[in-house]
């Protein structure tokens, strides 16, 4: 009887250890596979040139990634400018001002926002954001645009990163000890002054981590952005120009690149770029957040 129980224990232990090992090796495998696949391109051109060259014309053998890097940076920047202040203010309101009942009814709604699939954000972007930019926003600035623009992608992305930013910032704000707030309030500071000088100062690393996670989410978002950003491989010069972020490049061109040498390698290289940047960003953000958690729990 006991031997059987111990045997079962051992079987579970070994098989789950194996599963862990296999699934962790996925990361290594992904990284190596991407490097291996993009090697032909890296051999034929220097990394520096690939990243700074402006012309993208696979048929002629020009692989300049600068327009896509610029597109990615542009949509992400617009998204952050919209989302960061809104998320910080909302999170502060939810933790410092809102009643428990209100907080407990708003946070689940934000979780619903997180559960909506990207394609629905894309549909919303096409149905609402794009026409709004074309009809109302661009004319204010005297610009003519189809609406499929960096701004449209930025707005859609901003809404998409709301949930991740708010939930992390709320968690971080909740770890700030009440004594600190009480001390500041008892010295005669108003609640807003306490928030500005004590709470936000204390929460800064957490807010930075949340922003970094949001950036990496925005970098990798594919379909919603692809549907509204216009997809023209040129460096955007204004927010009303079309952009062409890296994930959209991969999604639009996969499957049809087999006949052109180096094309597949170029697309794999862009996947590698995404993987490397997002890996790094997530790593940094998680380290900061884990530190914070340990500080208050241990």
């Amino acid at each position, binding site marked *: 009887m006991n031997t059987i129980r*111990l045997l079962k*224990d051992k079987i*579970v*232990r070994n098989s789950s250890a194996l*599963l862990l090992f296999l699934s*962790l090796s*996925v*990361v290594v495998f*992904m990284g190596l*596979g*991407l490097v291996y696949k993009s090697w032909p391109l890296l051999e034929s051109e220097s990394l520096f040139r690939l990243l700074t060259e402006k012309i993208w014309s696979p048929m002629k053998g020009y692989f300049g990634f600068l327009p896509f890097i610029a597109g990615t940076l542009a949509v992400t920047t617009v998204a952050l400018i919209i989302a960061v*202040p*809104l*998320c910080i*203010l909302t999170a*502060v*309101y939810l933790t410092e001002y*809102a009643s428990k009942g209100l907080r407990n009814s*708003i946070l689940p*709604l*934000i979780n619903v*926002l997180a*559960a*909506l*699939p*990207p*394609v*629905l954000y*894309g*549909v*919303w972007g*096409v*149905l609402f954001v794009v026409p709004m930019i074309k009809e109302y926003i661009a004319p204010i600035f005297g610009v003519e645009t189809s609406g499929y623009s960096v701004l449209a992608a930025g707005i859609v992305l901003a*809404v998409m990163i*709301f949930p991740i930013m708010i939930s992390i910032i709320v968690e971080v704000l909740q770890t700030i000890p009440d004594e600190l707030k009480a001390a500041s309030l008892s010295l005669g500071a*108003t*609640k*807003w*002054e306490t*928030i500005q000088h004590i709470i936000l100062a204390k929460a800064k690393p957490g807010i930075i981590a949340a922003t970094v*996670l949001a950036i990496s*989410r925005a*970098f*990798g978002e*594919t*379909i919603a952005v692809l*549907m509204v950003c216009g997809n023209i491989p040129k460096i955007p010069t204004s927010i009303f120009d079309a952009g062409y972020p890296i994930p959209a490049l*991969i999604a639009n061109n*996969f*499957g049809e690149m087999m006949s052109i040498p180096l094309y597949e390698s170029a*697309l*794999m290289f862009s*996947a590698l770029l*995404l993987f490397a940047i997002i*890996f790094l*960003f*997530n790593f940094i953000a*998680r*380290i900061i957040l*884990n530190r914070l958690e340990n500080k208050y729990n241990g």
Partner: protein
Amino acid sequence: MASVKVRLWKERIAKGFMLLSGFLVTGSLFFIVGTILYKGLPYLSWEMVSQLPKGGFYIGKEGGILNAILGSLYLASAATILATIIGIPISIFLTVYLKQGSFLSRLSKLIYDILYGIPSIVYGAIGFSIMVYFGIRASLLGGIITITLLTIPIVVRTVDELLKTVPADLRHVTQSLGATRWEVAKVLLLFIKPGVFTAILLAFGRAIGDVAGVLLTSGFSDNLPKYIDEPAATLPLAIFFQLSSPIPEVQGRAYASALVLTIIILIIVLCTQYLAAKQKKHKM
């Protein structure tokens, strides 16, 4: 220092801005769902959800999106089941078999967090090149593999968070009665049962809504896949393709398909919330 009046005014203005942003953020949810409901409802019909696309469907003729609905359900169910079978033992191993706070468990959790953040287009690109390497064509199988890899981190991390909420006493009592670690794990799993279903539903929701991963791996087909190596349509992709059509009829169907997907997701979310509430009661 500014006068008290000015300081209080600042307080009011700040509070006003906070209310406004809270309103914008929560409002965006209703706005998105509302837009889709408003545009999709007129086009939604029983025919849409109960029939396969017929000849000329993509130029606005008869048929429905049953192929995409079922394709998505097949794919997401299979991937979620696989991810659960793989993910739950891993989180048990991390909490029950490894020492608390050991290097391996901390490293693994960090890696799963990072994997969770890797965008699905990267998974898709890798899945695609694996398939090319082995000569598998775009198929249900390819999609399932990619989506499983995508959802494992969700299952592992959610179940792990749940296991953290189990009181340490329960574990110690079980162990001191002479239970093996596997028996301890069974007790713990029983304790977090509603929560585990939440994790599974979260994974399912992510799986059914993903586009970038399946775009490159599972292909698209107007027929229902009979075998696992045939291409299969998925709902998000059907929305994407129909929306890019210039024909108003087809675009309308895209809105209706988006509405179908929204309804599926909202049902999943409701179940998740219900189970999460149940888990909370369980804790008391």
